[in-house]
């Protein structure tokens, strides 16, 4: 992959990139299929239930059956909905979720685009999903959708600020926004130790960005039915769900890269295990954390949610930047 990057751009190379991206897409769809299966299974076990066990051995084909069902369901659009926006919203929500994966370095050699502004690219594109959500809520012309969409937008933009700020500490320590260089700078110590405050803020804000429990207010079933996608059925609905799980993959990869040393092993003595295995283990642990939280945490109220972002996370993230900057200056003998 890295050799191809050095070559002169040509149609043949672009075709290779395209095929590689398709392979990633297929792997991703497999990941999403079994993430949903294990989510139901793990939460089942945590709640002393069995979870899906009917379709296929151990219920392993449950999600496959669900996707097939969504594909052959009738696609109903409410008569009063805004046609164009209604069709556009699932694309707006899903396309950036997949596009952000272009910059993630999975191992030292396995990486798609090696952008110098990797972090900014991820943040900028993932911000577009908010538009998809709010468009869906508005276009459906449904009161639940509108409230869900607006709440979701308010929540996502409020938590995006501390999320973006918590990464500044990592950039300060590395002196680069390139994700590959950030991983390579963690050879001696993974970032979550010196950047503990930043890591804590990132973890909480990421949870809200993903709309996952405990911050799943936009989809709060008990009050808003399904939130912004009440009126969506069939595969349009599936696209919103897919976007959510693809973001879970992306966010897990980001946490791994920014704070847990990406493909680096726990100890240099363990470096005989390939980097991709380390990366996958760290990512899957993050995904497991999502399921664990979902089985554990209750949902806060809207007012608690919004004031937490601005009154707690934002000041803490700013404090983290100041502390990091002062410590770096102190270490290099400037103060």
């Amino acid at each position, binding site marked *: 992959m890295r050799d191809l*990057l*050095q070559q002169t*751009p040509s149609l043949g*190379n*672009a075709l290779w990139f395209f095929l590689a*991206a398709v392979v990633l897409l297929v792997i991703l769809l497999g990941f999403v299929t079994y993430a949903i299966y294990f989510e139901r299974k793990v939460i089942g076990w945590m709640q002393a239930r069995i979870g899906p066990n009917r379709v296929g051995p151990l219920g392993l084909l449950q999600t496959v059956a669900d996707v097939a069902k969504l*594909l*052959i*369901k*009738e*696609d*109903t659009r*409410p*008569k*009063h909905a805004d046609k164009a926006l209604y069709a556009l919203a699932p*694309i707006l929500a*899903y*396309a*950036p979720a*997949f596009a952000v*994966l*272009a910059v993630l370095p999975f191992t030292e050699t396995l990486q*798609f*685009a*090696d952008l110098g502004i990797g972090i900014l690219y991820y943040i900028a594109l993932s911000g577009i999903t908010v538009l998809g959500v709010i468009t869906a809520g508005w276009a*459906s*012309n*449904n*009161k*639940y*959708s*509108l409230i869900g969409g*607006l709440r979701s*937008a*308010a929540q996502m*933009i409020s938590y995006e*600020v501390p999320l973006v700020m918590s990464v*500044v500490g990592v*950039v*300060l320590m590395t*002196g*680069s*926004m390139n994700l590959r260089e950030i991983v390579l700078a963690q050879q001696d110590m993974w970032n979550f130790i010196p950047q503990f405050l930043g890591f804590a803020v990132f973890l909480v804000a990421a949870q809200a960005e993903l709309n996952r429990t405990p911050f799943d207010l936009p989809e709060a079933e008990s009050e808003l039915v399904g939130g912004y996608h009440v009126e969506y059925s*069939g*595969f*349009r609905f599936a*696209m919103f769900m897919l976007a959510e799980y693809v973001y879970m993959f992306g966010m897990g990869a980001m946490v791994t890269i920014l704070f847990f040393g990406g493909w680096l092993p726990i100890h240099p003595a363990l470096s005989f295990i390939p980097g991709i295995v380390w990366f996958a283990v760290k990512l899957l642990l993050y995904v497991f954390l999502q399921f664990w939280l979902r089985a554990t945490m209750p949902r806060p109220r*809207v*007012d608690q949610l*919004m*004031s937490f972002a*601005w009154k707690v996370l*934002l000041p803490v993230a*700013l404090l983290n*930047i*100041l502390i990091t*900057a*002062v410590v770096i*200056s102190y270490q*290099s003998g400037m103060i």
Partner: protein
Amino acid sequence: MGEIYTNNYVIVAIFLFLGVLLPVATVSIIGPMLRPKKPTAEKQTTYESGNIPVGDSWVRFNVKYYIFALLFVIFDVETLFLYPWAVAYKELGLFALVEMVIFICLLVVGLIYAWRKKVLEWN
């Protein structure tokens, strides 16, 4: 160097294209071949917990959302300014630190103002 740059953005374009292709292909091309299409007036009504929908949903909504959007624009742009500073910090030295402390303090004043004006409250 220039080649890496072009190649990177070719990949980004490919990812964006694939990202748009999947929903378009499944919803508009493969979907219609597989799914039934028998719309009736009842199916196409707006869902409102079983009642006949009252009025339109395209109404004016709470101004709170607008204020949060404004705050977001201010602080997100601030963070964008922080990134180049963070990248160059080790080279710039003490001057950069003092400058950024002033910059952050100005924004904290803004945050405190919003806090005092009870903008951050949700009711």
